[in-house]
């Protein structure tokens, strides 16, 4: 029993050190958006696009300025 308790204690200490080393932020697979090798933020519905329903689907009244362009400069990037 004594040995078992020590094993458990040792495990807890090692896991605790792990938390301390990573600033208590431990990546959990699938729990967030991985970006640059590590989770960056939690995945949630705010990130969902509008899909087919976006814009009502029919595009009535669609408008876009075709080129912010050199009328003033660069709407694009690169």
């Amino acid at each position, binding site marked *: 029993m004594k040995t078992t308790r020590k094993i458990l204690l*040792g495990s807890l200490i090692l896991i605790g050190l792990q938390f301390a080393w990573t600033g208590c932020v431990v990546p959990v697979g699938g729990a967030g958006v991985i970006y640059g090798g590590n989770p960056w933020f939690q995945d949630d519905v705010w990130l969902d696009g509008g899909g087919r329903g976006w814009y009502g689907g029919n595009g009535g009244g669609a408008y876009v300025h075709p*080129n912010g362009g050199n009328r003033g400069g660069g709407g694009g990037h690169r």
Partner: protein
Amino acid sequence: MKSIPRLAPVLAAVALLAGGFPSLVHAAKFPPLNTPAVTEHRPGKLVWADLFTADPDGATKFYCSLFGWTATTLDQKDKSYTVFSNAGSPVAGLAPRSVKGASHPSRWIGYFAVTDIAAALDAVIKAGGTVHAPARNFPDRGYQAIVTDKDTVPIGLLQSGSGDSPDDERQPGDWNWFELYVKNPKDSSAFYHDAIGFDVAPESNSNRKSEFVLSTAGQARGGIAPLPDGDDVKPSWLGVIRVADLDQTLAKVPGLGGEVLVAPRSVEFGSRFAIILDSTGGTVGLVQYLDNANPANSQ
């Protein structure tokens, strides 16, 4: 007591597994926005865009097939980040989402250039926005954050580590313009003025009085247009990509699993424009300069 040293490797393995090997994970290095680096910064310019998608393979196939982009995968364990390049220059990224299924349509998020990410986040919060992805340094790209505006539309902020590129004319396959569609463009224009520092002016080339152009340093960076009425519409930024031939591009869309949401139409400056849905539910605009002339030159 003897069993402790013998079990040490096992305990260490258990601890590492419990932590998901965090200390062994090295952040993937992103390519810098500009190679070679430039010294100028252009706050307010849309300098990058990421597609957040639950179907990375499908999205990669769609965009590479449609625009001739090439994809370079950066290793991130089991969830790779993809850099799309157009004619050899990085133009966009793809970040996989942890959720799956068509109920989570993909979304493009454009990143505005900022010169001080911390100050930019403060300004967003003061203007009524919310921080969803905190500022983080991504070598060699720079500091990034993702926020939502007062209408909960996501936007990115990017303090580039390699400066911001000149405002050159975009080529086919490049982002050409960004437009925000919202219910109340006037309210939104106030947010973008306060949060990002845009100069806001009514769109003088349109009959729609509620449309605005966002500029910095005299350069038009994007526009704000009203969403049509309806319960199913959703405010969103729309990135518009220049194509050489709009009809040819649109003809490929259904075969790649996409859909034409807004049929091609003539717009200002002698251009044609359409909106498509990609095979994963992301929306993107397409524009063709007629006669391959930069419509801006007709002004």
